[in-house]
């Protein structure tokens, strides 16, 4: 096995671009991976994986169609996405690949029913999932030995997914759990056509992050009193959870970055320091 093979865990998986990318990493460049999945009408186009290499000489960006094995090879190298939002999307696609054999084995409808039941039993409730729930209908799974097997298989997939986020990408345990739950929400959204239905006007738009935060009004000003607040999204999520709002770090990051600028009720300007992976809050004038 040569050095390049070693870098990606052996010659079992090969991809035309992987060798070139491995050479760059072996040469000391750093990398970030990102997945792009644009909407086309009410469906999403095929995902594409982008990798950005940085070195003193500059930045080089390359891309390839999404493949679970290619992503695994990059994951094993500890290559992160630039933000938790991007990491969520990447993990959602990975979950799709992990779950595919289960859906085939148990049947899509049965798998759906058991997955939803498992998530409810495991109390995987976040703002994203709470907002999906009214839009998702499954019937209780038939009680049989297959139900227990299916639950065990689902649990194994989610455990593996969370463990990889910690072991390979160096996220904290809480960040990994948040990422898995946020990725599950994204997976369910696609599986049950929730956003597609919203685009068609068949389902109401979700209340959204700020509607939930508004319910925390008595507690929220505590955070606003600080003149300048630099924090990781995970810290903010922890704060919100401490006041009873079940938010993941990915939600916080996405919502603060996506909407705060236009939202007059939110008193901060937020910027993301990608290198430090921190959000910087500055009070609006």
């Amino acid at each position, binding site marked *: 096995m040569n050095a390049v093979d070693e870098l990606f865990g052996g010659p079992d998986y090969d991809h035309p671009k992987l060798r070139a990318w491995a050479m760059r990493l072996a040469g000391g460049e750093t990398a970030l991976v990102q997945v792009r999945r644009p909407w086309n009408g*009410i469906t999403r186009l095929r995902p594409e994986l982008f990798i950005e290499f940085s070195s003193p000489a500059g930045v080089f960006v390359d891309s390839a169609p999404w493949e679970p094995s290619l992503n695994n090879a990059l994951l094993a190298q500890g290559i992160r996405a630039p933000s938790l939002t991007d990491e969520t999307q990447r993990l959602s696609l990975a979950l799709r690949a992990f779950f595919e054999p289960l859906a*085939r084995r148990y049947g*899509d*409808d049965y*798998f759906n029913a058991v997955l939803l039941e498992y998530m409810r039993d495991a109390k995987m409730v976040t703002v994203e999932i709470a907002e999906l729930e009214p839009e998702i*209908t499954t*019937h209780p799974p038939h009680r049989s030995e297959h139900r227990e097997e299916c639950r065990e298989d689902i649990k194994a997939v989610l455990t593996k997914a969370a463990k990889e986020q910690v072991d390979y990408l160096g996220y904290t345990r809480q960040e990994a759990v948040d990422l898995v739950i946020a990725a599950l929400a994204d997976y369910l959204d696609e599986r*049950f056509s929730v956003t597609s239905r919203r685009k*068609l006007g*068949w389902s109401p738009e979700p209340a959204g992050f700020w509607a939930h935060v508004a319910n925390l009004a008595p507690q929220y000003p505590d955070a606003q009193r600080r003149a300048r607040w630099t924090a990781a999204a995970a810290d903010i999520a922890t704060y919100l959870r401490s006041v009873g709002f079940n938010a993941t770090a990915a939600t916080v990051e996405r919502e603060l970055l996506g909407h705060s600028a236009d939202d007059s009720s939110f008193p901060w300007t937020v910027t993301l320091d990608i290198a430090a992976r921190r959000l910087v809050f500055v009070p609006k004038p």
Partner: protein
Amino acid sequence: MDITIEERIQELLKPLPSASGAVERRSCDLLLFVAIRSEHEALLRRALEMGLPVEKVHGRESEYTSLGTLGRRHVMLVRTTEGPFSYGGSASKAIHCMTETQAAGLISVGMAFGTIPSAQRAGDVLVSTGILPYDAVEVRSTRTRTAFHDYADIPRLPANDALLDECRMTADLPEWKGKVHIGLMLSGAAKIFCPEYRDRLARKCEVGRSDLIVGGEMEGVGIASASPEHTPNWIIVKAISDFADHDRDALIRESRVLACRNAVEFVFSTISRKATP
């Protein structure tokens, strides 16, 4: 006053009066698609014979017939117009109805033509491992040949593996032995009355494929548009009503009822099982 099954079928075949006010949200686990009246009648007849709580309901873009729970699934029936295209054809209905109901699977049930007359009989059931949308043919010419058809690049659109496994289990039951053909199906909008064309089409489309072409039909190519190619949620289960030859219409007249009944019986037998494969 009690009404007969035949009277109830006639009621259910009529369109519902226009919905007034908001349409209720519809959901189910599995959608059954039929395209023509005979298929629709056969499905309703069997459902009523089985004592299912058949009820017609408004959706946003379609009428549905709820069949209640079969096995472990809540099932609804949708009728499309014949063929894949046009508003109300299988493509537009599949996209709308799968999005509206969040169904995890779709089975297209009905009549098809057989491609192996020497080994198949009218009424035999065809189960698709996938479809070949033969309209995607390339038409070429050379100095010596004009307008020849190149089928080499026609994609094979695979059916849902879990639904296929369930159908294989049914096909293995003693009552279905020798009456079920599992393989690829040609799918396109053409009505074929020519055995030479049928054979040539099947032979050319089969080149380089691992599974045999067992038949052909019209709606599958539309139904396949409702899900990504790598995660299909559909399967075609149809019974042979003809062999796409000169006698097509005469044979359809004779075998229509048998074909529709067998396809419906096979599907209900498959989805009525409670256990997962």
